[in-house]
Structures are given as structure tokens and as C-alpha cells.
């Protein structure tokens, strides 16, 4: 048994820290955990995805197989779709920050970013439930775009899709994030907890 | 996107990347995408704008038929020296400065008068920095006078005109080579539609030109014959001397014309225009009469500016004798003929060659008729 989660976004959005904290929470709750990450080149504005696997029984590799994704947490909608086309299956659920970050090729006019309507329906076709939220706005309201990842994790906890307690998570934020951002991170996490997406059934 | 035809792509295929470009600078500084150093022009990136000013203004591209009628030189045929209203000789009477001018100083005096009259607020000229030409803006008489004198290599002067047109306001006078005069005239006839130019060109003083050296070529000649010494004057004595004479502070160096010819910009060799046929007024030297300029007035603007300068006493004129005039027309026709032969010899299918060869039929016909007459 296990839960396969992917946290995806664009390099620099904070998916690595989010995955680390989420896996720590899983470990705390008695799960076996593994995280698959890639650093380096892709952090220069490329697509990034952290695979977080909570499991019991035999050991699992850090990469989730195709068509095996349970929960997708996407900081950017195009990246959500990218992951779903590879890892999605009928039961996949997703929480998506509906704030496009244009790839450099779109900005330069070499490619076209998909229309919102088109993108949403493609995502919905590949998920059983999808919550589109505006976590970017919340992070900006809190005064620091860097806490976007905590808003997203808050929303994940708020969905009730993972068997982990928000209270424990706050203590992990407390002990594992930088002192300057700690307070703001917790605030952001709490704001995320209360976010209600369009299809988020809590 | 990338495969689509657009004007920048056309400009690269038809002019910039070919042997017809003269580095006049008309395409530079219209946007950040076309840049230049010395007489080299380069494009930074592709452009998706279908029809661009860079192509419209270039003297080597096919002109819009609506303006073609108004143009001579490389674009249309208006007789051996183009359309004109008068021809004469002139020299500057600006006090105390005579000795400075290599020829007659008429260009300088005209600019001074234009500024005094308020026809222009400032001028774009080509200034020598060391032995090399640089486009420069001159804003008063002192600056105009200090910028006088001949230059020997090409400089993309029109890029400075483009910069001045968007940077400030007012009326600009330009001292232009024939190719530059054509570019400026095309621009004048088809002003930018984006409203970003607050200044405009109101006087084009054209210079006679048979060819110009590339800056790299000029540098090579200097390195070989002169070193780093300052060139005071340069002269090409009439045939059959077949030499170029460089005056380096009292010492005279001679360079065979064959050697010089190797460094002439290829674009100059296919130019039909010796007398700046698209200028308001064209100025050259007078063979065998040192200290005087040949002047051809072409537009109302040019003629009245000369008249005003004469009235103000800063230009003195005389008549150009018929023999000299015939000689000039012959020289100009000869330049056209040489250019046509060169274009035919290159046997490349470029729109510019096709256009001048077509024009050439007309020139040769009229030339024949003219001779008969």
C-alpha cells in the first residue's frame, strides 16, 4: 500500500522544500518514505517535479511509474498537464495553482501557451477531481511569493486527501524552515488549509 | 514564424548579406535589432514584422511604385546627373576659415546658412576621428566648421540621422553621400507611421562620390603606407596618373589605384549615382580649379538655400563652363556604365541588379540619343 504524490512546478517555485517537508511528515506519521528529485540545470526556469512516495511493506524506488499517480500538487497549470500525460490515471486527483508561468519560448513568441479553457478541460479529463486555486495571489498577499509552496501544501492538507495531520506539519515547518520565513510559512500553510478550490471536496 | 517571409529577411537576402550594401546606415537604429560598428552592419535576431522601415528606406531595395517617380540615382533615370535646376561653381566666404577647406568649403557654408536661417536646427555630418570617419551631430557654427574636410572611408552616417530623429525634435540637415541621400529621400517620402520620430530631415546636402573605401580596407592601406600618422589630405589626380596621393604632414605618399581598388566597397562598384541625384543640392570638386566646388541645385529647398547664402555673402558663386559641365555629365554616365557592367558581370540574381540593369537599357538608349543630339 502507498500514496504516490508528485509536486511539480517551474524551477525556483519551491517544490524541493515542499517535497522534503511532506516526506518528513510522512516519516513522522510512521510511513516509509522516498523522494525523487532532480537539481541543477532544470532549476534554470525548467520543469521540475518531486516524486514523494509514502508506503508500507517493501521498499519503493524514488521514481513513480507511469500511470501510477495518486495526488498531483502543481504550482503551475501547464506543468500539471505535463505530469498528468505521463503519470496520470483515472483515479488521480490534483490541486493546481492556476497561475501560468510562461515558458521562455512562449515569451519569445516561438510557442503558444494553451488557452485557459483548453488547458483546464485537458487537465480535468485526466483527473478524477481537480481543484484550481490561486495560491500565487495568497502568497503575494502575504508579502512574499516564496511562500507559494506552503500555501500549496496547506491546500493539500485541507483537501483531506492525505492521511497526515496539519498540526504535525506546522511543527515540521517550525523545526525545518529558515528562521526568517518560519512565521510566514505557517501563516501561508494556514491560508492554504482554508482555500477552497472549484472542485475541492473537503 | 521563422519560415515566413518578412522585410528583415528580405533585406538580409537582398542587401545586407550581399555585395550591394554600401553601409549607408539607413537601416540602423530604426530598431535595436540592426546594429553597426564602423562600416559593418549586422542583424541580431529574426523579426516577425511583415513590412519594415529597414527595407522601405534602404537605397538598394525596390522602392514603392508610388515614390519611385520622384527618385533618380539608383532608383530612376533623370538624365546623366539626375534632375537639376541649375549648375554653377561656388566657394565659401566664411571669414578666416578659407585655408581650412580642402576644396571650396561650400558644404560648410551652406550648413551655416541653413542654421542661421532656421531651416535646420542641427546637422548630421561625418567627422574624422584620427584618420577614420564617424557620424556626428553638429549643433553650432563652430562645430560645423570643425567637422569640415574630406573623409576617405565609408561611415553609416544615416544611423545617426535615425537616432536623432527619435531622440529629439527639430529639423535636421544632413551631409550625405549619394547612397545616403537616396536612403534619406526614401525616408522623407514615406515617414514612419508609428509617430516615434519627432525630428525630421529638412535639408539633404549631397556629395559627389565615385567610390568609397571600406574602413578595414582604408586601415590596411594606412598600415601599409602611412602607419599611424595623421592624413592631412588625399587626392586622386586625373588619369593617366592612376595613383592616389596621401598628404601626411608635408610628406606625400602615392599608392597605385589598382591597390586602392581592392579595398573599395563592392557595393560602390554597382552604384549608378555619382552626383547625389536625390539630394536637395549636390556638391563636388571642380577639376582643374582648386578652391572651388561644383554645385548642382536640384530642389526648391536647395536652390533657395544657396541663394540665401550668396545673399548673406558667405558663398561666392561663378558659372561652370560648358566644357566642365559636359565633362561632369560624361563622368557621371561613365560611372553608370561601369556599374551596369559590374552588375552584369556579377551574374547574381539580386533585385537590385535586376532593377539597375532594367534602368540601364533606358540610360544607354538616352545616352546614345544624347550623343547624337
Amino acid at each position, binding site marked *: 500500500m502507498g500514496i504516490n504524490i508528485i509536486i511539480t512546478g517551474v524551477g525556483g517555485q519551491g517544490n524541493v522544500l515542499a517535497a522534503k517537508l511532506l516526506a518528513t511528515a510522512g516519516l513522522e506519521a510512521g510511513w516509509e*518514505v522516498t523522494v525523487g528529485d532532480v537539481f541543477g540545470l532544470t532549476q534554470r526556469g525548467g520543469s521540475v517535479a518531486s516524486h514523494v512516495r509514502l508506503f508500507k511493506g517493501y521498499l519503493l524506488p524514488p521514481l513513480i*511509474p507511469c500511470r501510477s499517480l495518486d495526488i498531483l500538487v502543481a504550482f503551475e497549470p501547464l506543468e500539471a498537464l505535463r505530469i498528468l500525460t505521463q503519470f496520470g490515471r483515472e483515479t488521480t486527483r490534483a490541486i493546481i495553482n492556476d497561475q501560468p508561468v510562461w515558458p521562455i519560448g512562449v515569451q519569445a513568441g516561438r510557442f503558444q501557451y494553451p488557452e485557459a479553457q483548453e488547458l483546464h478541460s485537458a487537465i480535468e479529463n485526466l483527473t478524477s477531481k481537480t481543484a484550481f486555486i490561486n495560491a500565487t495571489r495568497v502568497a503575494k498577499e502575504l508579502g512574499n511569493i516564496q511562500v507559494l509552496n506552503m500555501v500549496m501544501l496547506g491546500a493539500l492538507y485541507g483537501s483531506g486527501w492525505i492521511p497526515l495531520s496539519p498540526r504535525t506539519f506546522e511543527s515540521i515547518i517550525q*523545526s525545518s524552515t529558515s528562521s526568517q520565513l518560519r512565521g510566514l510559512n505557517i501563516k501561508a500553510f494556514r491560508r492554504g488549509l482554508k482555500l477552497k478550490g472549484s472542485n475541492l471536496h473537503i | 514564424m521563422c519560415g515566413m517571409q518578412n522585410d528583415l529577411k528580405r533585406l538580409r537576402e537582398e542587401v545586407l548579406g550581399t555585395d550591394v550594401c554600401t553601409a549607408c546606415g539607413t537601416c540602423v537604429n530604426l530598431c535595436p535589432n540592426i546594429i553597426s560598428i564602423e562600416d559593418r552592419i549586422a542583424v541580431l535576431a529574426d523579426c516577425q514584422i511583415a513590412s519594415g522601415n529597414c527595407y522601405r528606406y534602404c537605397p538598394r531595395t525596390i522602392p514603392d511604385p508610388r515614390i519611385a517617380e520622384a527618385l533618380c540615382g539608383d532608383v530612376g533615370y533623370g538624365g546623366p546627373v539626375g534632375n537639376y535646376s541649375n549648375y554653377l561653381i561656388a566657394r565659401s566666404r566664411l571669414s578666416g576659415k578659407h585655408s581650412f577647406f580642402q576644396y571650396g568649403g561650400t558644404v560648410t557654408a551652406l550648413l551655416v546658412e541653413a542654421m542661421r536661417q532656421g531651416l535646420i536646427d542641427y546637422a548630421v555630418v561625418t567627422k574624422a576621428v584620427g584618420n577614420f570617419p564617424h557620424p556626428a551631430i553638429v549643433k553650432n557654427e563652430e562645430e560645423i566648421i570643425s567637422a569640415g574636410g574630406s573623409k576617405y572611408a565609408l561611415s553609416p552616417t544615416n544611423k545617426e540621422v535615425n537616432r536623432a530623429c527619435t531622440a529629439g525634435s527639430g529639423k535636421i540637415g544632413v551631409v550625405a553621400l549619394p547612397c545616403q541621400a537616396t536612403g534619406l529621400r526614401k525616408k522623407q517620402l514615406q515617414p514612419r507611421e508609428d509617430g516615434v520620430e519627432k525630428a525630421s530631415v529638412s535639408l539633404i546636402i549631397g556629395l559627389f562620390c565615385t567610390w568609397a573605401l571600406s574602413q578595414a580596407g582604408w586601415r590596411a592601406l594606412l598600415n601599409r603606407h602611412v602607419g599611424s600618422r595623421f592624413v592631412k589630405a588625399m587626392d586622386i589626380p586625373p588619369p593617366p596618373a592612376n595613383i592616389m596621393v596621401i598628404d601626411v604632414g608635408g610628406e606625400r605618399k602615392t599608392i597605385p589605384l589598382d591597390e586602392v581598388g581592392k579595398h573599395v566597397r563592392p557595393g560602390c562598384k554597382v552604384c549608378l549615382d555619382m552626383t547625389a541625384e536625390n539630394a536637395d543640392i549636390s556638391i563636388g570638386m571642380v577639376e582643374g580649379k582648386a578652391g572651388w566646388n561644383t554645385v548642382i541645385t536640384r530642389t526648391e529647398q536647395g536652390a533657395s538655400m544657396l541663394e540665401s547664402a550668396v545673399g548673406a555673402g558667405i558663398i561666392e558663386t561663378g558659372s561652370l563652363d560648358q566644357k566642365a559641365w559636359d565633362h561632369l555629365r560624361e563622368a557621371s554616365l561613365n560611372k553608370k556604365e561601369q556599374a551596369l557592367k559590374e552588375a552584369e558581370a556579377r551574374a547574381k540574381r539580386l533585385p537590385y541588379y535586376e532593377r539597375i540593369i532594367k534602368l540601364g537599357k533606358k540610360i544607354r538608349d538616352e545616352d546614345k540619343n544624347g550623343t547624337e543630339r
Partner: protein
Amino acid sequence: MELSADRILLMGNEAIARGALEGGAAYATGYPGNPSSEIVETMFGYQREHGIRVEWSANEIIALEAAAAFAFSGLRAIVTMKQNGMNVASDFLTTVSLNELKGGLVLVVCDDPGPMTSTNEQDSRHFAKIAQVPLLEPFTASEAKEMMRWLLVFSEQMGIPCILRSVSRLSHGRGAVKLGPVPSQEIKPSFDIEKPLVGLPFLVTPNHAHLLKKMKEVQTTFDKSPFNEYTGPNDANFIIMATGLGALYAREAVNMLHLEQQIGILKIGTIWPPPSHLIRAYLKQAKDVLFVEEIDPFLEDQVKVLYAEHASKLGAVSFYGKNTGDIYGPSGPGVGEMNTDIVLDALGRIFNKEISACASPYEDARKQASILLVPREVAFCDGCPHRASFLAIKAALELDGRKGFVVGDIGCYGLGAGPTGFNQIKALHCMGSGMGNACGFSQMASFGFNQPVVAVIGDSTFFHAGLPALINAAFNKADGLFIVLDNAVTAMTGFQVNPASPFTATGKATRPVLAEDIARSVGAKITVLDPIEDIQESIHAVYAALQEEGLRFLVFRRPCATFEKKTRAAEEILKARIDPESCIGEICGCNRFCSRVLACPSIQYDKDKDRAFINEDTCNGCGLCVQLCPRQAISLVNIQKEGRSA
């Protein structure tokens, strides 16, 4: 991070560092390179508390040589590198293995299969065979820690350097690790001058024989090693032999296909020398063997050699591997990264089992959706000095017009080969390769080669591998233009310090080594400037250098914008801002130059408003766009000041 005293979550590389600490390492060094950099970085954190000496070396072979000095003197040391670094270090490795070490010496090499940040996908396990040194490969973060600890002790016992091989997915993945005790450092190091460690020719053969004898002992130890483990039915005759993460991919695939009762998995952690008795025992039991390992069929080859040696005592066995073409990803066998899906496919083919797909409407939707996927290319960061440097180089080469081109090497600036660097770099291989290539290009003039060549190199790479090329160029009178792109930090691998940095890894101020000082000493013509400050001047500088002859050395110096943002609480925080009144959108002849051509991630074009705008969240206020806007619509504002006045 220590949530429970029992197990904590560690990145693979952090686990390796922890293993070094628990193994009693006194020294850790290396050269940064993805995916290995975090090992030494983690060691920096142990430095003060545990009295370990930690530093970044100028390159991998120096790192290994320095670490060997510790081992020569009775202390334990580790050296880290990526696979490319293995090549650099191998010259020393293949000779030092012939000597008897007093202290433990472990070389950690992190391979990058299906490269995420590499210019090759080399399998470094081959070096263990070349140098005849033991090599282990872990399959979890926990085992990585344990292997590291054990290897330091084992290396010391055997007197041989050892290798720990990791891969990106393990090094950068995370898993639960149980921490062990940290020994105290009590040994006083000394070098025994009675026992010289020299590799003179007449000593090589006896030393080599001694090494091979020791490797036999190693093999005996490995046969009984707990790092090798069999799971599955005792009588299974289909056996998967797997190394590293391969063991986990194999287990997941077997379970997903419900083949647990038919397939046994022999996980092998001791790669070189292979545990031959153990392997033979399972070869005897098996009728079919499938190999699952990263990159090359290394284990596969060794097992087949063993099988051939002992074939008369073994039954018929069918082998399924990369050599046989039975296991492969989308790009074919032996290339790309291993994963569960590849094993699933292989087993599916062998056992004739359908790999379950989703229902057809879902699969159709998947296909439909992939049409919408726009690639997300990597790009220079907001305010990156390299953007301006490559713009200047491109402009100068275009102006020069002789079909000049750029050769380069590895670092952030390698992106100069892509659209973000205006596709300028035309040859890119290993550390320093651009400068070396340029030496050769410049010697072809007598054959009629007349294209100007520009070699670009980063500050760290210049010190790593550029120096010999510079000296070679000076000595052989190469006619080249070398451009050092000096951003004062090794940015790509995570902002490590290097000799160009104004401070050491521990934050102490130091005098940076200036590349131009070295170049000046060999007679190069020097130009130094900030590439962004005046972009026209930068273009002119490159153009002017292209017109000259001889050894020309241009330094584009400006600190990495992303590193500056991370580290400095600046007095003023500058942001570019576009005045929507001055920007005229599509009617401007610039054709969206700032967003389209410059393609800084912070500059975007709003189609609805027909205006460019700056994302002030990400803008680093470098001011390049300010200089290039033909409408002068962009200006720099100090938001710190704005904040105060508001």
C-alpha cells in the same frame, strides 16, 4: 532536522556525507558537479563540530591527490566528483592503487544516467576495474550512508582506495536514514619516510601483483557481504540480478505484475570485484537471468564471464540484459535512466504479460493533452550576466561577418548553446574543452581556415581546466580570443565558491584569484569589463578583440545575479519598470525586442494591453533591457526607497 532520534529524512548525498562522518573521515574535498556537490557541502556543516577539514579543490585530480596525503599519513579521507571528474582523477587513481595506504580513502563518484546536467552518460564503474579497486553501489539513502561508513574502514584495512558509486536519482532523492555514532578523531597523522610510496617502473609489477592478491581477499569479503541480498522464493529459477536503484525498480515491477512467487531478486551492492561465489550459486539455481542496472551492462558482462568460466558446472541459463537487447527504455538498451516502467516492459515481454493501461477514453485524453504541451526550455536567470555576454559576442561575430563562432564548455554558460544564449556555442564537451579546441582552430590558418574562434570559459572552469590551455596557447603562439565569463561563483552546481570568489567556503574573506593576472603573465592582451553595464561597450570590446591578432583575453566580470540575490541584503533593490505610456507595443519597430529577443524571464508581453511589462517579483534589476529599449520606456527604480517613502 532531527525529528526522531531514530530515523531522519536525508538526501542521498547528505546520507553519504553522514556515512563519512560516522566512518571517521578527517578530510573531505572534491570539485562541485551535479549530482555530487551536496556531499562536500554537507561536510562543511560538520566541519566545526567534528574537527573535519573540508574544502573545494580546483579540480578532481588535485582533490584526490590531496585526500591521498591524508590516507598516506594514517587519516581517513573522502573525495567527491561527478562522472566527468572521474576521468580527471583517474590518472592518479590508477597509480595510487598500487601503493599501500595507511588510512582509508574513498572516492565517491555520482553518475548521471539520462543526463540531467551532464555532457555524457558515462558509467564510472569501469574505473574500478581499470584501477583494480573495490567499488560499492547503494540502493537507498540508508544503505549509501552505511556503505560509506563501512568503506572508509575497509579501505584502511585493505590499504586500497575504494569507490562508492551513486547516480543522480539516489544522490538527489531522499529516504529515511538511521543515524549511528560518530567516532572521535584520535590519530596523530604522520608519514613514514621509511616506506616511500613511489611508482618507479621496477616497483610497478610487484606492487601490481600485490594489489591483485589483495583484490582476491576483497572478493572473499564481498561474497559474504550484507550489501548483497537475495529476496524471493528459495527455488526461483527466474532471477533478476540488480545493482543500485535497479533492485528497487525490479522489486516494484515484479510486484506490480504479481510475479513475486516466480521471480527472485539478487541485489548486488559489491560491484567490483564481483562476489563470484555468490553469483555462481544463483547461476546454478537459475534458468533465466535478467539484469537491471544503470547505464552500461557492467554486472551483466561480469556475470557472463563468470558463467563462461564455470559453465561446465552450471546448467543452461538464458540471459536477458542490455547486450541481448531485452531491457531498454525509449532510446534503446544501455542509454538513458533505468526505471520501473522499463523493467515492467522487459518482464512483460519475457512473461508475455500485458502491461495494464488505463481505459481507452483516458488514453485518448492523454494523447489529446500531449498536443498542448509546450516545452519549457531552461534559460539564463533574470539578470544573468551571461545573457549580456552572449549578446555582445553574437553582435560582434555578426558584425565581423567572417562566420566566426563560439566554443565553450560546462557551466551555466553552456546554455549559450541554446536559445537563451542566442545559440552561440557551437562546440561543447568537457571542462576546458573550448579553450583547448580554440588552440587547434588557430593553428589551421596555413590550411586556409579563416573563421574567427571565440572560446568561452567560466571562472571556476578556467581554474579547473583552462590554465593548461592558456599556457599552451601562449607557448604555441595560438591566435585566439579567450573570454572568461567570471561571475565569481560556481553557479550551476549550487553556487560553490572557487578561486575567483571573494570569500572561502567557510565565509572568510579572501583575495580572489583574477584570471587576467594569470593571462597577463603569459603575455595575453587583456580587456576586463562588466558585460551589462554598457552593452554597446561590451559589443565594441568583443568586436575590437576579433579584429586583433595574437592571444587575446577578455574577462566579462559581474557577480551571478541569483547568488547575489540569495546572499546580499542590498542597500538598494533595483527593479526595471516599463512605462506603459512610452512603450508602444506592436507598432514599435522593435518587434517586442525586450521580451522576444532578450528573452529575460522577467520581461513579458501583455497581448491584451499591447505593452511589455516587468515581473518585479523576479526582476534582478540588471538594467540590460533599459539600454536596449528603442523607446527608452524602461527605467530602473529602487523599490527599497519606494517602500520607505510609502
